[in-house]
């Protein structure tokens, strides 16, 4: 566990924590990412993101985690859990944007 935190912190330093505004992601791509979130992330986290085999992705559940941590979890996955790395399908910028959206709450 400590090792994971150290690794993620190190990765954060390398990556340089930054925020992404919606303007930097094309609206069409935003819609694609939401569709992916609902239907594909949703196969483990629930279509309404209220949890399944994976944890809920509601703003409340994610409150203890920072945007950077969440973005890196999306990009790299969580070794030792079923969470896979989404790097082949999502850029870092998009992951930061998606993490920001999740922190604000995107479930209906």
């Amino acid at each position, binding site marked *: 566990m400590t090792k994971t935190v150290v690794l993620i912190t190190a990765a954060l330093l390398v990556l340089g924590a930054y925020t992404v505004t919606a303007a930097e992601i094309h609206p069409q791509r935003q819609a694609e990412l939401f569709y992916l979130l609902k239907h594909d992330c*949703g*196969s483990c986290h629930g279509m309404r993101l209220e949890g*399944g085999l994976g944890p809920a992705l509601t703003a409340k559940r994610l409150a203890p985690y920072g945007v950077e941590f969440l973005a890196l979890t999306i990009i790299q996955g969580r070794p030792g859990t079923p969470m896979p790395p989404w790097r082949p399908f999502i850029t870092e910028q998009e992951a930061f944007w998606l993490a920001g959206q999740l922190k604000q709450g995107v479930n209906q």
Partner: protein
Amino acid sequence: MRFLRYLLMASTLYSAQASAECLTRGTGDMGIVIERAAGSLQVIDRTTHQSLFRVEGLGDLSHASAVYSRDERYAYVFGRDGGLTKVDILCGKITHRVVQGGNSIGGAISQDGSLIAVSNYEPGGVKIFSSKDLSLVADIPATPVNSEKRAKTVGLVDAPDQRFVFSLYDTGETWIVDMTDPADPQIQKNLNVGALPYDGLITRDGRYYIAGLFGQDGLALLDLWYPEKGTRLILKDYGKGEQKLPVYKMPHLEGWAMAGNRAFLPGVGHHQVLVVERGDWNPVGKIPVHGQPVFVMARPDGRQIWVNFAFPDNDTIQVIDTESLKVIKTLKPGKGALHMEFAPRGEEVWISIRDKDEIQVYDTRSLELRHSLPVDKPSGIFFTSRAHTTGL
């Protein structure tokens, strides 16, 4: 003008049927299709390839599944949000509905048809209801993981002798619940069956229960003729020395892809279908396939295996010949090919294509598309013939 009047009459007749009147017919060639995003389902006719009713108000149906009453009139639909809904498919109406948990993952109907069991992630455990009116009969909490949480229950199936079998994801257990006396459920707990069982299945004859493991290679096998012997690991070396690939959707172990004496199972983290000989449960082959398999299903006569795949390969279906163990056809039906259901005698397979909002019906002999039906974000397809199959 006459045609218009006919149309008007036909539509009046249809809506009257849908709202007030019930159909007078057998249900043996009927089924339901889940509309996962809309929280509704369609009742379909397998012979005419048409929709008979649309039933709304079933809650969150992502990952929904269903079982049937033994008279094939009622479907019990298990929703993700803990909703359990009893639907009269002859009338296209909900007769009973309870929200029995916070987050659920399917269920089963007892051998005698009197009980419906539901598997819950939150709060972790299994609840058992009367199939008549969905009143609570038994509540079986799972093993606590910490002070706040109990283990998630997965792979719940019915078994002979009025039993239910399921596994505990977080704690690696398989439990057998004997409901002979509904007021006094007898529970046999098998501990340490393997790491992170994510789903389970039972053989059609009801003898073997197998839990797939996410946390390690292999599967946990339980012989229900000899439950006292506990589970044993099979195929524990199948992935040795191979790099595990990321899994973007968990495989499903539904039903049992059995052809002759061979069983076909999805690899986990391996783009392979595993072939195992029933009896000694030794591996006899690995079939390389297009992606991470989700459903591996045998045509009822056992001649073919149909496989669909996890994201990002869910636009593909492959058909395997069970004699040569080779892929004989790769179909590209569209993105989001989520679920397949065979006609009970195997002449057709119905496939849900989520992103096209349609069901496609293939002839399993020519492997050609024959029909399609509009369905809003379809996922699970369940034919009434399941009413008479153990484990479905």
